[in-house]
């Protein structure tokens, strides 16, 4: 990787970090509601993985998805506006924090039912295989998603059909407050071994290690060698979501992981060590990112809420007229006036 690309990786990680810190602030100010799962500590995973993919490879992730959307190219403005529930957000305020999406970047979304998106990833890979598009699907999930039925069903199916899919566990060692040792009976790699799937363990606090691992398994998939499994060991600095007081984890453990911070480490061990940047340049990056996120917040705050008359849009791809018979939009009439006649509606 040349200097420019390495610096870009650094900037992306800083962007995610600053974005998440500011999002937490906005949550505290009640600009953001509901569940807000932050990515602090895990930045190297999304950034490293995305850097290893082609722009038309498909990416599917869980609800801890801000970092993924940003790494995949969604603007900080669109992501922040989505968290604010505004019309300018990635889904126009439909999905919120847990359901970001940007299909033009082949980012197929954040999914908030644990394990629910794994079969979808296998399906995207099945389509790539059937339609011979050459695409690889990257499916990220939490360690807590590796016990549910869809995990096993998707791994079995992917191996059986030799699908070009990468199952990547962002193993931050906790599912909400439940430690890996409390939720899983066997070590992570053994789960992949059960399906005879190629697997690697990766240091998730090292952006280059993640990048190289994803490069390797994506190449395997492209060569027709089928699915693979990455156990990417990482850590989240904050609680599960903003609703989590984070009392169950040992403070010393958190501090130990922070010593391996992916951003500081990459700056020190790669960028500065190889004299690719000066400390002053790193400061400039920090400042420009802070400005970008500040701008995103202003943009989100100024953006309108979605128009009420868009509420029914896209329940179906084409409008379906008579679905409004039983109760209509905005001011529901008790008696529907607009009864379609046979044959006229979509």
């Amino acid at each position, binding site marked *: 990787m040349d200097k420019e690309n390495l610096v870009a990786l650094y900037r992306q990680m800083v962007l995610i970090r600053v974005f998440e810190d500011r999002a937490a602030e906005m949550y505290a100010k009640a600009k953001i509601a509901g569940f807000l799962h932050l990515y602090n500590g895990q930045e190297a995973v999304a950034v490293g993985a995305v850097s290893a993919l082609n722009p038309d490879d*498909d990416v*599917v992730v869980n609800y801890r998805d801000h970092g993924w959307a940003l790494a995949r190219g969604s603007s900080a403005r669109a992501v922040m506006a989505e968290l604010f529930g505004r019309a300018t957000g990635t*889904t*126009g305020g*439909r*999905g919120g924090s847990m*359901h970001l*999406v*940007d*299909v033009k970047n082949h980012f*197929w*979304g954040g*999914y908030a*039912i644990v394990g*629910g*998106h*794994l*079969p*979808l*990833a*296998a*399906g*995207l*890979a*099945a*389509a*790539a295989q*059937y*339609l011979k598009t050459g695409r690889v699907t990257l499916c990220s999930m939490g360690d807590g998603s590796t016990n549910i*039925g*869809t995990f096993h*069903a*998707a791994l*079995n*199916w992917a191996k*059986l059909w030799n699908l070009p899919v990468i199952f990547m566990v962002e193993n931050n060692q906790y599912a909400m407050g439940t430690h890996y040792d409390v939720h899983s009976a066997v070590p992570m790699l053994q789960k992949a071994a059960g399906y005879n799937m190629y697997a690697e363990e990766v240091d998730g606090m090292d952006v280059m290690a993640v990048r190289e691992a994803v490069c390797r398994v994506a190449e395997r998939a492209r060569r027709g060698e089928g699915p693979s499994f990455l156990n990417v060991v990482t850590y989240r600095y904050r609680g599960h979501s903003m609703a989590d007081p984070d009392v169950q984890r040992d403070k010393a453990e958190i501090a130990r992981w922070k010593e391996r911070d992916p951003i500081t480490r990459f700056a020190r061990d790669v960028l500065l060590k190889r004299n690719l940047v000066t400390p002053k340049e790193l400061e400039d990056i920090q400042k420009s990112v802070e400005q970008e996120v500040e701008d995103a917040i202003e943009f989100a705050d100024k953006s309108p809420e979605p128009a009420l008359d868009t509420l029914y*849009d*896209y*329940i*179906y*791809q*084409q409008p*379906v*007229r*008579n*679905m409004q*018979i*039983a109760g209509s939009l905005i001011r529901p009439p*008790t*008696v*529907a006036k607009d*009864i*379609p*006649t*046979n*044959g006229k*509606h*979509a």
Partner: protein
Amino acid sequence: MAEITYREALKRALREEMQRDPTVVIWGEDVVAYAGGGAYGVTSGLAKEFPGRVRDTPIAEEAIIGVGIGAAMGGMRPVCEIMTVNFTLVAWDQIVNHAAKQSHMFNGQIKVPMVIRTPNGHGRTAATHSQNFDAWFAHVPGLKVVAPSTPYDAKGLLKTSIRDDDPVVFLEHLQLYGTRGEVPDEEYLIPIGVSDYKRRGKDVTIVTWGRMTMESLKAARILAEEGIEVEIVDLRTLRPLDLSLALESVHKTNRVIVVEEGWRTAGLGAEIAASLQEMAFNDLDAPIARVAGLEVPMPYARNLERATLPFAEDVVAAVHAMMQQQY
């Protein structure tokens, strides 16, 4: 026009759409090898005709639906077969939280053009294997739900469902697979969301769908001998629900009976009755009546199973009761 079975009509629809569009595939349990294709024979022979496009899958309904959703997102038109409706429960999360949500929640960016084919019904298979979940699926915004009663409707609606850009739950019926009806050789399509008169009459309107359309037609023949002419509206699609013909008919007959196979409480009949009285209260000469399945887990014994399900005689009895009442 040739008379063919409901099963054959479905197979012809699948064949025609697979010939027309190479992205149409069939995935499901035992759709290839078992007994020549399909637990109920719908896909028999298709695997040979379309190599690589009809595939047996693991017994993992959540994955059959989920992989189908992903493939549909990725540009295919999968037809996923769930062996019977009972097993859709294993995939309920994929159907409700994923298939039905993608288009709206992602603001139109993702479409899921897939068909979930599965039969309702009974056949001395007891509680876990003899159910009807029409109302459950019809409850969910984002799904389209189709439940054809005749071979003609089955073929035309399955073809449309495969071409539709939204997820369609296509509810067949075990007791209908062997029934016969006229199906033209030339191609035709039936739009989703359009109900149909299956019999014209002036005395009582029966609103129904699926197997109960057939039972209602039997009832109509018995009642006709007594001089009572029922009109039968076959909804054909349960979501979106087209009540326009039902309304038109009520306007004429002033009496309605909703006939459904599933459990009565919170059933689709309740929704239909409520909607019709909202829209046509002044047309009604009698309270809207319901014929429905009894609310018990289905027993195995022949007599108990029969007692649980609605048949033509229950429709006849309901019509008699309605005609005898004075208001």
